[in-house]
């Protein structure tokens, strides 16, 4: 135990390592905040950059960037309605309305503290229960992933805004966008129209930047001559009472974050959206309605995506299996530095586990410090004249879309989805379900096919499998429950049907 503590404190006691974690976290916040620059990208560049270094300093920098980057995405989501990273999509839903009311400072303060809480819970689970959680994550079969993804797509119900019908349409469109390109399982062409540029599919980041960033910038052009919203910076750090009030919710959403993060193949983006949906379901009386700036709508995704960081390290450190794209690269970096991440790492080099846990805690603390300072400066961005801000957003959108894959084609897609997103918003569709569909598309498609292939194309056998496995049964039950309770089939149907017809509502 004392040995573990000693390893845990390595990065705390060495000034150079401490500085590198701080630097990494600081840089990560900005990497995360700029759409098109991703943590994945930053960490892979760091591999060549830190090539000649020792393994400890290299890992300190990477861990810092990871933690800071996941958090940083919330900045631009709140201030500009452009999620800096996919894991901040859900944050934009209630964060941006707050900024428009002039409460950006409070929103950032709350999301910072909640990211810290979530990050802490994630690391806590990593430290205490890593072997247990990773064994649990391994028991997920293709059918379980499929059920989980279906559970995810049911979120359309809470992202649809004024019309469920339009939400379902947008969600299905997203699923289809995600299927474009060479089928990853059979290399069959899907919706490519013979164009090689489409083989790789439509870049998800390009779609996201277009639907959120460009469409928002175009909408803002309507108000080009209006003065920008003045931000009142009152209390930035939320009171103890407020934190205490959201603690039960954040514990639940952090658990969602850890589990989803620990599952190989799902990460912070899905975790944050599922947590948002969960918050919407369990919060009976929010002070402000969801979608208009509910605090719970910030708490849930921000705790979940930072908890997913600790979660992603669980299978990585115990089994050598990456929990998400970033941990996959960190595994590569560890190889290059002469370590062999795998099930033996915990046994042969237990110091690595405790060292990384220690660095994560440190990064989490720095995230809180850097996150709470400089908010005033950040909120100045929204107070810039629109005539300057909008062209800048558009330029950043183009550069960001290009940077993901160094592809002009992605820029065209981004523009197309920008214009399309603008029209969607104008006519009362939400862009959230589109993004949700794109995120979940491959997860559903691939796991459905794996599941049915494994059962030799026999639906009966598939259902037998679901009903004989406790895990699948629980997930299946959750799907049925949410489908009935969240869609208008149950409570909504009778009530809404009557009033909808009377008011001619519900398109």
């Amino acid at each position, binding site marked *: 135990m004392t040995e573990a503590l000693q390893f845990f404190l390595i990065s705390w006691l060495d000034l150079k390592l401490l500085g590198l974690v701080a630097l990494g976290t600081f840089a990560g916040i900005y990497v995360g905040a*700029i759409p098109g*620059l991703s943590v994945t990208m*930053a960490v892979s560049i760091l591999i060549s950059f830190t090539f000649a270094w020792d393994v400890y300093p290299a890992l300190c920098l990477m861990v810092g960037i990871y933690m800071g980057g996941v958090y940083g995405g919330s900045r631009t989501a709140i201030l500009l309605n452009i999620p800096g990273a996919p894991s901040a999509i859900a944050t934009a839903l209630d964060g941006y309305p707050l900024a428009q009311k002039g409460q950006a400072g409070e929103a950032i303060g709350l999301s910072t503290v909640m990211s810290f809480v979530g990050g802490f819970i994630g690391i806590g689970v990593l430290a205490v229960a890593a072997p247990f959680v990773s064994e649990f994550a391994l028991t997920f079969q293709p059918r379980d992933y499929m059920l989980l993804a279906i559970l995810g797509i049911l979120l359309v119900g809470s992202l649809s805004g004024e*019309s469920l*019908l*339009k939400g*379902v*349409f947008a969600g*299905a*469109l997203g*699923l*289809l966008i995600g*299927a474009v390109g060479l*089928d990853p*399982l*059979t290399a*069959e*062409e*899907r*919706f490519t129209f013979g164009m090689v540029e489409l083989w790789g599919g439509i870049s998800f980041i390009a779609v996201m930047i277009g639907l959120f960033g*460009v469409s928002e910038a*175009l909408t803002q*052009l*309507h108000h*080009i001559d209006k003065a920008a919203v003045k931000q009142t910076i009152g209390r930035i750090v939320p009171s103890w009472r407020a934190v205490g009030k959201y603690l039960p919710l954040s514990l639940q959403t952090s658990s969602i974050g850890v589990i989803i993060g620990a599952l190989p193949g799902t990460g912070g983006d899905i975790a944050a959206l599922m947590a948002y949906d969960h918050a919407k379901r369990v919060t009976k009386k929010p002070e402000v309605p969801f979608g208009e700036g509910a605090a719970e709508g910030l708490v849930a995704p921000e705790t979940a995506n930072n908890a997913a960081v600790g979660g992603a390290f669980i299978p990585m450190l115990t089994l050598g299996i990456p929990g998400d794209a970033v941990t996959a690269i960190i595994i590569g970096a560890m190889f290059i530095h002469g370590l062999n991440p795998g099930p033996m790492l915990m046994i042969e080099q237990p110091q690595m586990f405790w060292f990384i846990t220690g660095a994560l805690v440190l990064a989490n603390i720095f995230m809180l410090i850097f996150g709470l300072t400089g908010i005033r400066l950040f909120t100045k961005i929204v107070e810039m*004249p*629109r*005539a*300057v801000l*909008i*062209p*800048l957003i*558009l*330029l*950043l959108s*183009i*550069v960001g879309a*290009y*940077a993901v894959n*160094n592809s*002009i084609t992605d*820029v*065209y897609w981004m*523009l197309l989805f*920008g214009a399309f997103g603008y*029209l969607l918003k*104008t*006519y*009362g569709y939400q862009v959230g379900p589109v993004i949700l569909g794109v995120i979940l*598309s491959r997860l559903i*498609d691939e796991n*459905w*096919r794996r599941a*049915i292939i494994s059962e030799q*194309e026999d*639906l009966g056998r598939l259902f037998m499998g679901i009903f004989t496995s406790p895990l699948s049964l629980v997930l299946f039950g959750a799907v049925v429950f949410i489908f009935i309770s969240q869609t208008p089939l149950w409570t909504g149907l009778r009530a809404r049907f009557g009033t909808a017809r009377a*008011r*001619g509502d*519900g*398109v």
Partner: protein
Amino acid sequence: MHDPSKKMPGETAFAVVLVGLSGFLLWQAILISGFEALSSPGAFPMAAAFAMLVTSVAILIKTLRLRERMALRFFTDVAPPVILAMFAMMLGYALLLKPLGFLPTSLLFLTVSIFALRRRGLLWSFGVSLASLALVYVIFRLVFTVLMPSGVVPEGEILAWLGNLFSGGDTQ
């Protein structure tokens, strides 16, 4: 600004376009692999496109039933000239990016759009553009080594030359 109980200008046309799009995508999805197996590559796209078609038809029907119209006009409220012009600028940017290169295209884009929107001194707009572009360039090109198209500017050579100056001529 959307009110579900009233019809926006262009809303019906948009709904029709979406039905057409869904139908086309469903047809394309069927072409992928037909109905050969539950696990075929086309199964999932077909299901998604089918859901799109059903919902878009339902949306169209509901839109057609709307009696009240909003007191808005398409080219002043939905797609006013400023939005169309800005979008055209972005398209122009994307087209010029490869041949002209990142730096000149971006500078042109920023200067023209800031000047047009702000209507305050060309020089001022140019200055603001130059400063923000420099920041973007440092972050994306230098720190993150994203190779933006260099076009007419021999960027690689200039950077190498600059690097040479920095190294003060010391040889390896």
